[in-house]
């Protein structure tokens, strides 16, 4: 059976709420959790495969030019060396998310420092690593005076169609209150804890690759295209992925290199990137320069809204950090300019890092909103509440469910937000200035085509299969609970199998679309199974009640496994986005409230507490959803205070290419974080009324911290991260 739905109308039935199992939304432990906490969950590089050779990538020690010779003879006599691969099909860059085709493959043409140029294959990792340091290569490096590393020094191109509406200049000139501010943010790394890794096996007909990837349905096309294979000759497996955050959206260099080596040598080959390689040749989030103009009338209602950003990428890349994404829909203002300028420079590929666009766009916007509130003399929460538009400010579309106001109010209440005067420097404890700040959260809602198979087996348990991945997001849990709710099964009666291209395909994990899209496919499959059961019991689906393996019609109960009989009932759910995407402006919303302490002598900032309130449609599992929010808020602390990719201005290399020098938040940087999940159903978002939550928690929170720093010590900062040197420089002496 196949159940297909093109999502042309909102699903207001809220079917999951009619079910009786009571498992959907519950804060259950993750079904795969015991495997993770006992170290028995296998990640990509950890499959025991006999005779597996070890590959180590060799990378370019210069930023731009041509490799002229790779001298295999320089290492081929070293112990254990099997081969030196520099096949032209090897990929020099990772694919962008949803690319669906091979990324750049000219590995001899070097476009950034650290680009892979060859693969050493040896019997052991130690042998391959040693040879990778000894391999002699010759190259013609371009003159550095012709190679641009700094986006400020090159001409830019306008990315896609800007939004230009009304007359912003006039609105600014005639505004009762206005701000015109420039912010900068530095580049970010995803820095997922598991480095990119692959084990490739070739049996002469089929290439099987265990890889650490987020979007198998796209990755299989990207890999097949890279190797001139048909998709049916490739199988990708990613059952456990040690974090992604965008860095594993597209097929990466080690996957293709391992595959080429395995096919050439007819032996399994494992390639794991070093941490430095992950930093140097996987996606960065672009640095940004953002000009924000806000014009408001006497009532402090926005009449002008400008958000213009300059971002960068390598030549040939289509991606530009969509900095203004939430600015399109979040606040009012009929006179608008939203524009992105793209600078072509020779830093590694810029691509998606958790919440591309909003992660850096929202923190700047929310800092600017704070300054506008101060200028206009109103409470920052009130300013946001006053500027929630009736309809989308450009498209005039209605919003789907939107809980921004509820999030602002509930967040403020829970945090204990004090309305009224926001004069800085009102509280000091010893050498620490104490202050508070707030921000809105917003992240666009996406869904994508997804398929999943649900099999109701003769023992009364259910099996869910899809190529969707769980990158820490809770996919195993939420698909289990979706099927369990629909079929009346407890968590232990549903098995979810993920991350294998042999299963029905879906969109994978990215853009916060995985859970709502794939859960919708599971939901559709379960509806088809319900229908089949109703047919067998000669009744309507609505007459059935499913609970704990029993189906009840009226006052009569049936054991589920007896209805199933000897043959499993199998249905494939196929969810396809439709007109609802065009009919509504859909997004997840929230609010952040932060309290910080700023050291008056050193400029060091400590986040003392933080509250986030979030509305993202139906909560599928309150425990994993809360964890997603906690993770996002933790990223806000990094983005606000410490995270910054630093490039050498002379030769373009990434200076801080490891976890000692690129500072992600550690335990002691993170206070107790309070998360409020605001009750919501969004029937226009997906058939399960859910939106995305994986990224919402990072969209704006760094702005709340910036605003709290100002409130604490009077330092307005326009450069993220707000490191002690920057805070100190912006702080008045007394």
């Amino acid at each position: 059976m196949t159940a297909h739905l093109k999502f042309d109308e909102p699903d207001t039935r809220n079917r999951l709420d009619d079910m009786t199992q009571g498992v959907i939304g519950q804060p259950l432990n993750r079904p795969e959790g015991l495997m993770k906490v006992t170290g028995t969950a296998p990640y990509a590089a950890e499959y025991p495969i006999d005779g597996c050779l070890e590959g180590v990538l060799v990378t370019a020690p210069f930023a731009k030019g041509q490799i002229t010779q790779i001298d295999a003879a320089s290492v081929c006599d070293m112990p254990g060396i099997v081969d030196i691969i520099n096949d032209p099909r090897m990929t020099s860059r990772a694919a962008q998310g949803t690319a669906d085709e091979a990324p750049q493959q000219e590995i001899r043409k070097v476009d950034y420092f650290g680009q892979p140029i060859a693969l050493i294959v040896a019997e052991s990792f130690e042998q391959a690593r040693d040879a990778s340091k000894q391999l002699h290569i010759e190259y013609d490096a371009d003159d550095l005076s012709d190679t641009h590393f700094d986006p400020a020094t090159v001409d830019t191109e306008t990315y896609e169609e800007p939004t230009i509406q009304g007359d912003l200049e006039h609105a600014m000139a005639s505004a009762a209150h206005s701000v015109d501010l420039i912010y900068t943010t530095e580049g970010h790394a995803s820095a997922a804890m598991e480095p990119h890794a692959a084990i490739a096996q070739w049996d002469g007909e089929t290439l099987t690759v265990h890889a650490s990837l987020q979007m198998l349905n796209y990755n299989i096309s990207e890999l097949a295209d890279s190797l001139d294979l048909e998709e049916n000759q490739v199988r990708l497996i990613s059952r456990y992925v040690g974090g992604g955050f965008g860095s594993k959206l597209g097929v990466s260099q080690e996957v293709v290199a391992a595959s080429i080596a395995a096919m050439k040598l007819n032996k399994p080959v494992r390639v794991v990137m070093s941490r430095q390689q992950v930093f140097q040749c996987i996606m960065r989030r672009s640095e940004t320069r953002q000009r924000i103009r806000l014009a408001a009338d006497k009532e402090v209602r926005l009449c002008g809204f400008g958000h213009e950003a300059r971002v960068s990428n390598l030549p040939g890349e289509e991606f530009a950090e969509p900095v203004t994404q939430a600015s399109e829909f979040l606040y009012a203002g009929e006179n608008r300019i939203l524009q992105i300028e793209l600078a072509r420079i020779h830093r590694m590929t810029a691509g998606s890092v958790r919440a591309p666009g909003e992660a850096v766009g929202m923190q700047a916007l929310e800092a600017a909103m704070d300054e506008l509130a101060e200028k206009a003399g109103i409470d920052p929460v009130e300013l946001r509440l006053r500027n929630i538009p009736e309809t989308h400010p450009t498209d005039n579309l209605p919003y789907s469910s939107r809980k921004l106001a509820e999030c602002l109010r509930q967040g403020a209440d829970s945090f204990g937000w004090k309305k009224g005067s926001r004069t800085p420097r009102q509280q000091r404890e010893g050498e620490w200035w104490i202050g508070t700040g707030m921000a809105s959260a917003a992240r666009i809602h996406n869904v994508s085509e997804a398929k999943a198979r649900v099999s109701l087996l003769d023992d009364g348990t259910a099996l869910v299969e899809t190529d969707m991945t769980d990158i820490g997001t809770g996919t195993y849990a939420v698909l289990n609970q979706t099927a369990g709710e629909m079929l009346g099964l407890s968590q232990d009666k549903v098995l979810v199998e993920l991350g294998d291209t042999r299963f029905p395909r879906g969109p994978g994990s990215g853009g916060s679309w995985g859970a709502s899209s794939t859960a919708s496919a599971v939901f559709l499959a379960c509806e088809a199974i319900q229908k089949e059961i109703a047919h067998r019991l000669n009744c309507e689906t609505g007459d059935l009640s499913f609970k704990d393996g029993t189906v009840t019609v009226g006052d009569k109960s049936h054991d589920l496994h007896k209805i199933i009989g000897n043959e499993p009932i199998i249905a494939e759910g196929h969810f396809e986005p439709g007109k609802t995407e065009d009919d509504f402006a859909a997004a997840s919303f929230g609010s952040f409230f932060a309290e910080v302490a700023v050291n008056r002598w050193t400029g060091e900032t400590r986040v003392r507490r933080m509250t986030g309130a979030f509305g993202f449609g139906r909560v599928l599992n309150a425990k994993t959803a809360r964890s997603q929010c906690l993770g996002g808020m933790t990223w806000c602390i990094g983005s606000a205070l410490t995270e910054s990719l630093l490039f050498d201005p002379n030769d373009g290399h990434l200076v801080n290419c490891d976890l000692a020098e690129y500072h992600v938040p550690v335990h002691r940087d993170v206070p107790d974080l309070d998360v409020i999940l605001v009750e919501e159903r969004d029937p226009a978002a997906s058939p399960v009324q859910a939106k995305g939550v994986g990224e919402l928690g990072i969209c704006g929170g760094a702005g709340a911290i910036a605003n709290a720093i100002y409130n604490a010590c009077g330092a307005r900062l326009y450069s993220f991260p707000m490191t002690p040197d920057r805070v100190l420089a912006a702080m008045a002496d007394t």
Partner: protein
Amino acid sequence: MITVNGSSLPLPSDPRTTLLDFLRHDAHLTGTKKGCDHGQCGACTIMVNGIRINSCLTLAVMHDGDSVTTIEGLGTPIDPSPLQQAFLDHDGYQCGYCTPGQICSATAMFDEIALEWPSDATDDLMEAPQLTDEEIKERMSGNLCRCGAYVNIVAAIREVSKGGQ
């Protein structure tokens, strides 16, 4: 020879093999994770003779006669340790990759508190340190979690620490 989770194993012949790579490749104990290979992330934390170390920063051949405990030696899916169970209950992990290191680290940290070792978060060096949240966070700061599960990790450790008292 080296003892790993109670089993005696021969040391590798290649002196370049780190203790981490020995565990993952030679001993097939992949619960110990490689996150950075430079002692920066803590994913490879194990206990050697009861003391936590980054197994990527030491060579296997340096551990002749030593006794190693890895995540696999603390508990199993059928019989998890109290801390493993607490991590499960508090969702003290997301992707799971830093998790074995966090759990090994926290397990050894309890012993360090029992031995009254002070830390940067200890106010009074003359008094036995208490496992306050600040102590937990300071002592666990060598274990990075990019998913940002810190709040839940601390909650899990706090629960077991209270149970232990």
